[in-house]
């Protein structure tokens, strides 16, 4: 055994015991954990709204910009499609398509985030305005932080895309950042429905 160990310099290749590859599974589990984090914020939101809540929600005189946020939702949803386009493009070996898709996704995501910040400054209440303000900023802020993280990951993928990485055979960097981005989008639909529409 000792002589054998001298001869070889790297680890033995681990046996792959699942059809899912490790990075994808890791991202999915991370997303499960993220969903639970959102779950804790939803819990406190419904406690404040249903259990301890005032008769009217949102409590007067506050009201929510449902329409602007709806437009913003559309923007974020569109970015999921451009992300999908980027992944499909590189799967066919179309490097320019991937780059365009990534840049568009980044631009749409950034637009969403800036609109959200703009909304904060004009919405007419602050996190200090009752449990209503706290839970509103809590949920949308937590989501905003996730958009920021998603954009950071996408920026890295974009940098790599422009530096000549990713091929039709090896594009996990795009695929996995895409999974996270789709999660951020789907989560926004839940947040938007809960906070603005319900």
């Amino acid at each position, binding site marked *: *055994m000792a002589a054998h*160990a001298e001869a*070889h310099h*790297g*680890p*033995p*290749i*681990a*046996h*792959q*015991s*699942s059809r*899912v590859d*490790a*990075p*994808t*599974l*890791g*991202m999915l*589990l*991370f997303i*499960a*954990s*993220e969903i*639970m*984090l959102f*779950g*804790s*914020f939803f*819990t*406190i939101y419904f*406690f*404040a709204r249903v*259990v*301890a*809540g*005032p008769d009217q929600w949102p*409590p007067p005189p506050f009201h929510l910009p449902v329409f602007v946020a709806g437009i913003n939702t559309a923007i974020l949803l569109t970015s999921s499609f451009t992300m999908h386009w980027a992944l499909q493009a590189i799967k066919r070996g179309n490097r320019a398509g991937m780059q365009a898709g990534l840049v568009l996704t980044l631009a749409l995501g950034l637009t969403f985030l800036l609109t959200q910040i703009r909304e904060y400054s004009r919405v007419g209440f602050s*996190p*200090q305005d*009752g*449990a*209503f*303000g*706290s*839970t509103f*900023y*809590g949920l949308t802020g937590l989501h905003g932080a996730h958009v920021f993280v998603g954009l950071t990951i996408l920026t*890295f993928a974009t*940098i*790599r895309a422009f*530096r*000549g*990485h*990713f*091929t039709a055979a*090896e594009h*996990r*960097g795009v695929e*996995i950042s895409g999974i996270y981005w789709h999660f951020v989008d789907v989560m926004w639909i839940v947040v938007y429905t809960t906070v603005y529409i319900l």
Partner: protein
Amino acid sequence: MTEVLDQTPQAQAAPPKTGWRRWLLGPGFVRAAWMAPLFFGIGFLIVIGLRSIAHYEPLLNWLIVVTVAGLVTAPLGFLAGIGAFDYWVYYALGYPTRPEDHSGHGARSWKDYFRVNTDHKVIGVQYVVTTIFFFLAGGLMAMIFRAELAKPGMQFLDNQEYNGLISVHASLMIFLFVIPAFAGLANFVIPLMIGAPDMAFPRLNALSFWLLPIAGIIMLSSLAVPGGAFGAGWTGYAPLSVVGTNGNVWFNMGVQWAGASSIMTALNFLVTIITMRAPGMTFWRMPLLVWANFTTSLLVVLATPFIAGSQFFVMFDRLIKTNFFNFHESGYVLGYQHIFWFYSHPAVYIMMLPGFGIASEVISVFSRKPIFGYRLMALSLCAILVLGFSVWAHHMFVSGMANWLRVPMMVTTLLIAVPTGIKVFSWLATTWEGRIHLATPMLFALGFVSMFVIGGLSGIMLGAVPIDIHVSDTYFVVAHIHYVLLGGSLFTIFAGIYYWFPKMTGRMYNERLGKLHFWLTFIGFNLTFFPMHIIGVQGMPRRVSDYDPQFGTWNMIISISSFFLGASFIVFLYNAITSWIRGPLAGANPWHAMTLEWQVSSPPPIFNFDEIPQIVGGPYEYGVPGARHAVFNGAREHELEEARSP
């Protein structure tokens, strides 16, 4: 978060820097020493910048600055400095990475234990040693407040100091000892047990270890921060934790760092166990320790975000005056307890299931018998995992929560006794007519079974609403938690440390001192904590620094026993240190165990296996003629060739 190996053509990596540039810019503590202040400055500017944009007055709020810059960005700077992020930064920016460079892997000298190391075995040892340090720190705090409690009346502590000591004692023991000590042992053993060369994400593994000293230092310093020590109890209930001393912020952030560390480790375990098992290692051939950590990791990944949420809310309520738990602004105070216990009840299984795994390994090996009811042992772990999420409100029977929640929570709580009972009976049945070797690991494992039964019985009593109302917040609860966490978790941690000590260090511990350690701990533990049942039922409240003189005699006995218990760890430390330095060489398999980690040298080779073994049978077939767990040394290729040839 994911670490993706780059398959694109590799450019030649830049040559290593030389001389002072390497000293200053290369990963290590020197770079950490300047990057941590740099990141503190960045955090400072972020706070000031955001506050000036939002027109908050005053511009400079030191509590917020310290929280963001001191407890978030500066630790990040430290991590960047020691090189925890180097690979990812190179990867993310598209620079050449060196997947074949294993310079950060394995330990060649003791100094390698103080670096960012990607070898799961090194990380496992790092974990265990770090957690023992925090265990001793937490234990010393217990000694101090037991001295205070020896007599009625106030001795040498004031109330705030007392509250600080009990709070930090509990948070260190829970977040910095029990949970990460299990993670450390599992880190060392799991890849070996499933026949993998390392964890699935070695760099993430290194990062999650290095979050731990950060969390520990933050928790420790919460004792001595300006604005008062953290004294709200380890549960940190709102509104006390919101309006109380500033040390609460340190607790909030310490929990976040420790929680992030355990989520990352758990994610890593799950991916490793699912994707990297050796050929033939089906789920029903996995050792129970692997099963135990699989279920624990699921609990961690799904539950820990809830404590993160609860601590965020408390911190926001204090720092930026939100109203999550502010009753006057229609916040919901009880929400804290619901969210907190939705994590912290599963957390007691996070603190116990890996111990179940260790006990199963040890009891089977030292009884020289197959584990009794292997599948049921694994399934009962899964049952605890599921039920664990449905019992949180039994911590809140007297909190004023909705009355209709009480009985369902009582029923689910008592239901958990079923899978736990299955495990206890299986361990007993495993020892039945076995050839029992009472070596130190076995003593600790059997001590665990007996003490855990006592803790389990008082747990059933506490799970019943009427008894719980009577003994809520008394020493009965203190006795219960110490029987399950000290008699349960600590005993199994020691069983694990003694069991794998030869594998980790290559040397054998001193058996006589090990047994002495066990008996001192066992006797001291019972003398300390059993009387607490009695004074608890009589109504002595916990978390109070003074008490009625009628409890004086018992408390004096408890305090003296606790010093005895504390002193017993000196035996352990002496044994561990001297044996590590000059104990006799242990050999590959001193316990004649079948699981894979014992089939390689002690300590194991740098990548665990020269070739991945082929698993051909169950892991506990002791005394079964002809039974084999794994096949090594080319036998796999040989069998495959035979299968291929017509």
